[in-house]
């Protein structure tokens, strides 16, 4: 995990607009994008397709409850 990501309290949301033909395609692109960005635990929080593409909110969990949160052990926090 990168040093910057260690500072994330729990999750990173990516909010964007994807050019795609339908919601299914938008979902595939969303998860592919998260994979390419290095998020192992990704899910789609919101997706709505209309016209030229899909408005999406995709989430990559950095820490989930019960994990060992590195920010808790960081002395400068």
């Amino acid at each position, binding site marked *: 995990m990168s040093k910057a990501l260690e500072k994330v*309290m*729990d*999750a990173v949301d990516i909010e964007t607009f994807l050019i795609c033909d339908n919601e299914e395609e938008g979902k595939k692109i969303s998860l592919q994008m998260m994979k390419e960005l290095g998020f192992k635990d990704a899910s*789609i929080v*919101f997706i709505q397709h209309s016209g030229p593409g899909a408005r999406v*909110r995709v*989430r990559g969990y950095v820490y989930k409850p019960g994990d*060992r*949160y590195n920010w808790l052990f960081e002395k400068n926090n």
Partner: protein
Amino acid sequence: MGFQKKKVLLAPLDPVHDIGLKMIKRGLDQAGHETILLPPDYSPEEIIKAAMDHNVDVILISRTLGYRVAEILGSFIDLAEASGLREKVKIGIGGMAIRPELAAELGFDAGFGPGTTVEEAVAFVEGREYVKESKGKNKIKKDMTEKYDYTFKNKTIEKLLSTIADGIIEYVKDKTTPGIERAKIREKMLEINDEAELLQLKKEYANLCDDIVKAYYTKGTLKEKTRQLSREELEALTTYLERLKNKMNPEYLQYTETNPIVFIQYGTGCPFMDIAHIKTCEAWGADGVVHFDPSWGARTEGFYEGYITHEEDGSIITYENLKIIKEALMPSSLWQVRAHRGLNTPETVLLAGKVGADLTKINIAYGSLGGGTDPERLTVDAVAAIKYAARFGMPFDVVTNEELCGVPAYKAFAGMLIVTMLGLKLGARPILQPLFCYSPEVMIGGQMSDNYVDFNAAKVMALRSILNAPIWCGAPIGFLTQTEDRVQSSLSTALHASLASSLGVDGISIASADEAYSGGPISAAARIDTLRATQAAFRFFGHTQIVPTKNSEVWASQIVEGIEKTLEAVVKNGNFVDALYKGLLGSREEGAYPGRAGRGTVKAYTFWG
């Protein structure tokens, strides 16, 4: 004026915009400084000339438009230097197009970006450090119940409730349950120091628990996906909180004195993540926090001990878990530990009281018709729990979540009012908790086909016409109106918050922008979204009222009428517990099913001595 009077030139280096400078001019004038405001669209040369002609001490430039901003400001500073003005005069720049880093890079003495206050600019002129005033730092803990005397305006309903509540007290007086007995043992366990005696009590406690909890006391094992937090983690938490203490400068959500107290709900599964979320919400202005326990915990006899985390929704109730959460709270934060359903209701209220919670949550009707607990069991347990709430001086809300199952509001309110009357008779301070939700009742009945205002308003109006008691809308407000879209979700929450405020209620519980998302844990950022939206809505409406249509009055009358008829039916039936089984407070057809957890566990008091 505590500072030397300054002569200040205010100049919009912009073709049109100068509203910010006008506001600052007023602040400087009020502070006793001499100001000269130039009109928009002056060139840098003209501004420099004006500054020299007036022999000013400070120049404040504003720039709203972003195009060529660096170039224009750079040339202004060059001119100021060339003219010899730069050495004698302090120059600040502000406006929508300005970032402090840019101002510093170009050589300005200060840069004020969007959101700069007039006070900040005045402090710059006076050469003193700006200290942001934080209303949040002076927050005080509020008691929602203090201004209410619980006088009944509707005497017919009062009489019916009194009969039912007396019947409940009579019904439970010679009965006990494993939940009540465990609470008694737990209290002894918390008070004694003798190891041998403690061991004996633990054995007695374990014997009253389900196997999954008994295994902890006999073998030290926990259920799957559950673990004790390590010493290293606990130490790290202490350090984290110690450092955080100095960084807390909380926001203040309320804009008027009539805006309600705002609660958030937490229960990530991990007390550390809960604390991290709570501190974030406190910083962003939440006034109170509500502890959510796991649903399996409510259907399991007995509590674990220790600092425990697990990987599912809802945070496990133990004395230790509650204690670390309590210790992390700001002194002004209200803290509620829910005990409205489940098999550990008395012990939950006992632990909440022992640890120092401010509020709890108890409702027999919801817990037994929508929460899965046997009606008789919860009735007996709830009376014991209410007695603990009274003993610890903890007001409790009576939530009406059975509405979400499909029970009509009037029936849910009848159940709520019964528990309210029971609470009053037992010396506690109940709080009414009507739901602000898009319930099955209104989906079918169409009361919200035009707007979300009227029926929610009708609920509050109906309750107000019955008795003088605090109202805390929940839980969360806007339930089933929010989608996974964070903007829609936050807006819906904020609008419901504004409606609640307009109706003059005392408290609200708000969701995060993740309310409708069920694919994973709620994120801290999603909590901030709705807090910020609520704050903005309070600012937008101020003292303005939202005016419901006449429908609200009609529906309020119907709700009161329905409550009365329901209570009459319960009185006629003669036994409250039996009325719950029979569906008088919510039937199977309406989606209310008497719970089965704990069925057959109520015993005559002599059973346990």
